[in-house]
Every structure is written in C-alpha cells, then in structure tokens.
C-alpha cells in the first residue's frame, strides 16, 4: 500500500474499477451485433429494446442512488420527444400539423444530433425546476409527487394543442433511429450512469439511501445530491424519449403515460434497482420475455387450430413477475451488486 503501485498495476486497477461498465457494454454491444444479422423485424425489436434500456438506465440513475422510487421518468421522456420532434421536423410538415407554432420553432430544422441533445437538456432543465420543491419531500411523499409530475405532463402535452398537437399525433419525424444509433446512445447512457455513480456526490447520495438521518447528521446535503441525480436521470430519460419518437416517427401523448411507466419501472425492479448491472439485466430479461410472450399471443399452429394466449397475457405475467420479485427477492436479479473483475490478481 505504501509504495506507489507500478504502472502496469495502475492500469489493471483502472480496468478493474471500470470493469462493471466495460463488461455490460460488451454484453449489450454483443447482443446488438448478433441482432444486426437477424431479420428486419427482430432488428426493430432489438432497437426498441435498446431504447427501453436507455430509459431504464435513466430511471436507475435517480432511483438506484437515492433509493426514492420515481414514476416521473416517462414525463421527461415525453419532454425529450416533443422538443426533438419540434426542432427536427421539416417546417412544411410543422405548418400543416401545428399552424399556431411560434415562428422561431416553426422555421427551425435542426440536424438530428443537436435536436436529441436539446431534448435531453430541456428535460434536465424541467427536472431542475420541478425537482427543487419535490426533492425536499421525504421518500414516499417524493415518489407520489413524481407520479403527480407524470399526470401533469400528460395533461399539459395532451391539451397544449398549439405546440404539441394535443391529442393528435405529431407525425413526420425523421425516423433516423436504427439499431446502431440506439446502441450508441444506450452505451453512452450506461457510461454516464456508471461514471456518475463513481462520483463523490453519488456516494453521498447512496449514504443517504442507506440511512437518511445518519447522512444528514454527517453533513450531507441530501436535497442537493438528490436534485443532481434527478437532473442527470431526466437528461437520460429525455434522450430515451427522443430515441423512441424518432424510432417510431411519431409522437403520441398516450404512448408516454402509464403503460410505458409500468414497463420501465417493472424492468428496473425486476433487474434490481440497486446497481447498473441490475438495470441492464432487467431491461434485457424483460425484452426477451416480452418477445416470447408476444410469440405466445400470436400463437402456435397445431393442425388447423391455433393455440394462442389471449391478448394482454403478457402484461399480466409481467405484473405478476414484478410482484413475485418484490416479495421473494426484493433487491431484484442483481441484488445491488455490480459485475466483478473475474481475474484475481494473485
């Protein structure tokens, strides 16, 4: 310990420290690479899975480090999706759907990357403003308040007809999100989440997660660190929303409400809300499971009869799995652990 470690050891130490992130990135990239050889339908499902992964990682940044459950991440996804849509759509299309748009936005046609970043940043800004009062609340009150944020976002986007089109869909977004774009952002989200959780601020926040009173007594400004996590989380959620909008080519307000919230929260809980590995594992496991259940709902042909599960079975099973996980393995699949360096130094 006393002597400075040799250069080689420092590199190994660094690698060891970054290993959870590298391993997860390798796994996710490997799956995406495998999917790129699959038929187009499966490729689209994989892209959708990577977008969900980004959303789950975004939610994890706040929930995992603060220990406070948030139902509001889908609201920030909606913010990201609408901002990017408004900035990148062709002015001609906007003048058809949204004739009352302010001229500055109506004439804008940003390239896709700045549009996506703007979506993330506006979501983060909204989180900063909203989070300021909310982060003062104690644990479960804050959770309920984030649910209120989701409802408010739904009401506002669903009725702000001049800017969002209200209940009508916003169509004609450049549908540029393919497998590789989604992979790039998913990896970036994982890297941001991991590097953030290695910071001092995140460590202090996790201390408050374990024992809020003790952390406060030790001089931790819980509200400040919660707010920071909330803002970073909203940025990543916003990006996930941007991806979803530009993947589907359409933004509909009801796509960003309870069903998506349920899916994202269920993924995080099932995977384990205490670690990045858990968030990624949940997203991957549920993606595969959803795919299998989708097949089950389509059914198998046996002779002349089709044996199919009734539509909606998938949702019931997902809810049941979430319930069983919380009852019997409340910390999820990963149970708060990260992947560890497999090669022992000795």
């Amino acid at each position, binding site marked *: 310990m006393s002597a400075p470690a040799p250069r080689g050891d420092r590199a190994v130490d660094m690698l060891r420290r970054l290993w959870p992130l590298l391993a997860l990135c390798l796994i996710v990239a490997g799956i995406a690479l495998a999917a790129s050889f699959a038929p187009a339908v499966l490729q689209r499902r994989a892209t959708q899975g990577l977008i969900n992964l980004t959303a789950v990682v975004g939610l994890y940044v706040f929930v995992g480090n603060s220990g406070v459950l948030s139902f509001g991440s889908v609201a920030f996804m909606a913010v990201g999706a609408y901002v990017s849509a408004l900035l990148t759509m062709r002015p001609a299309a906007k003048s058809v759907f949204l004739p009352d748009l302010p001229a500055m936005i109506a004439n804008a046609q940003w390239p896709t990357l700045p549009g996506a970043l703007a979506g993330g940043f506006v979501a983060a800004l909204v989180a900063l403003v909203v989070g300021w009062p909310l982060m003062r609340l104690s*644990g479960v009150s804050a959770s309920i308040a984030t649910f209120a944020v989701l409802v408010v976002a739904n009401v506002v986007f669903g009725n702000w007809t001049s800017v969002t089109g209200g209940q009508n869909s916003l169509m004609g977004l450049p549908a540029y999100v393919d497998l590789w774009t989604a992979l790039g952002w998913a990896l970036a989200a994982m890297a941001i989440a991991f590097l953030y959780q290695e910071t001092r601020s995140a460590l202090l926040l996790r201390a408050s997660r374990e024992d809020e009173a003790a952390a406060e007594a030790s001089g931790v400004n819980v509200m400040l660190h919660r707010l920071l996590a909330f803002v970073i989380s909203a940025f990543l959620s916003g990006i996930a929303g941007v991806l979803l909008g530009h993947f589907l080519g359409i933004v509909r307000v009801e796509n960003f409400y309870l069903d998506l919230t349920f899916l994202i929260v269920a993924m995080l809980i099932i995977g384990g809300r205490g670690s990045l590995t858990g968030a990624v594992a949940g997203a991957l496991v549920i993606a595969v499971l959803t795919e299998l259940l989708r097949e089950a709902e389509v059914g198998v042909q046996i002779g002349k009869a089709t044996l199919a599960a009734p539509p909606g079975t998938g949702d019931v099973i997902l809810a049941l799995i979430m319930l069983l996980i919380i009852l019997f393995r409340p910390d999820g699949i990963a149970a708060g652990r990260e992947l560890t360096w497999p090669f022992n130094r000795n």
Partner: protein
Amino acid sequence: MERVVQTLVDAVSVGSLYALTALGIGLIFGVMRLINFAHGELMTIAAYTLLALVGLPLPVMLLGAMLVAVVLALITERAAFRPLRNADPTTLLISSFAVSFFLQKLLILLVGSRLKGLDFLPGLGREIQLVGVRLQLLQIVTIVVGAVLLVVMTWFLKATRLGLHMRAAAEDFRMARVLGVRANGVIAMAFALSGVLAAAVSCLVVAQTGVVQPRMGLQLVIIAFVGTVIGGLGSLTGAALGGFLVGAGSILLQALLPPELRPFREAFVFIAVALVLLFRPQGLIPARGLRERI
C-alpha cells in the same frame, strides 16, 4: 347567485369523494406505512361488481360491491403486504404498484379495456329545488354519504376500542404492539375499512359518470394520493382534509379559469400542491411519530 351555489355544492360533493378516497389510503398508511396503489383497483372492481349484478335489487348490488371490495382488500393484504410488513416504505410502495397493475391488467384480460355504460341509480340524476336553487340530487346524496361516513369513521376511531388500537398503531406501531395491540387484527381492520370506503366512493362515482372502465380507480387514486401528501402523510384528519381540498379545488378552478385554460386544471391543482409543499414539506397537518426517532 344560483351559479355560485351550484358550483360550491359541486365542489363540496367532489371534495367529499376525494376525502373518502384519501381517508381510505390514509388508514392503510397509518398502520403500515404503505401507500396503497391497489386502493384504486378496489374501486374499479367494486364498480365492475355493480355491472355484474345489474338487475338485482339495489341493496344486493351495494352490498355485493362492498363485500367484493372488502374481500379483495383482505386478500391483497394477506398475499402481497403481510410478507413485507417489516420492509421499508419504498418496497411496500413497489409491491402495491405491482398489485395495482396486476389487477388492472387482469381485468383488461378478462373483460376488455373498453368502457362500459352502467345506468346506476338513474333516479339520482334528477334536479331538485332547494331553497330556491336547482341542485342535482346526486350531489346532495354524495355530500350526505360523505358526511355520514366521515362521522361514522371519526366515531369509530375515537369511541371504540378497535379504533383506539388503530390510532395507537398509527402513532407508533411498535409501541402499540408492545402494549398489547394485535397487529394482524388492526391491519386487517384497516384494510376492511378501506374496502368499505372504496366501494362507497365507487358507487357514487359510477352513479355520476354512468360508465365503468379498468383505469377509473387509478385516476381517482392518483389525485387522492396528492391529497394525502398535502394533508400530511400519516395523519387521518390531514388525509381527509387534503383530499377534500384537492377535489374541491379542481372543481373551483374549472369554474374560475378562463375556458382556454380549463383543460389544464389538474396541472394548476398540482402546481398549487407543489407550492404548499415548498412551505410545509410535512403537509398541512403533520403526523406525529412519522419522523424516525433516533
């Protein structure tokens, strides 16, 4: 003048619906620190019970809805919440979220997600003349039912032995147990009462809207949650007051806001709530014993 009285009566009737809902949620939170999302599904399933019992005499329908809600409340307690009794509030919250979605998705699987018409208590849609003002009979009934239930609940909590146990448990669960309060009995009682309240609210809401759909409970419960939070989580008076204020406030906003802003009234209500919380993070009537003592 007539308009003003009508709006006020409307506000009080909607306020009492949310007060009852928030009280049902507050009862459960008091005894086990659980925010019960599944309270919404108790209401939804009570409403579907009414739909299933259509054609039978009215008392049978009401009793059936109440019975189903109570039994369902007890089942969820036994299956999903009792095993987690010593878990932290967030784990309990997740469990109730999962139960809520499980029941909701199961209902969609069984009966479909489309809303169904149910002309329940059509007689209450009538308007009556009261001190020179035309009022809907249903609103009067809602207010009366709300008031009666609140009085009965208060009497139960203040004047009966079990009520005393429940208040003691809400204040300090561990101490109450040490002094001989039966945990299982108190918690089961709280769930049963929340089932009764859920069924009552459900009947009144169905009579008002005339439709049932799988999402109806969740929509009610989210607003009632916000009511319990501004009232002060863990305080029963606070829950009822907060629920009442949120419900009545949204009706008053509907009347006072300029027409182009009316669709946003929930947003305004919740922003008002956020402002209240800025100054009173513990709620209007903070509960004693909620903050962990060290």
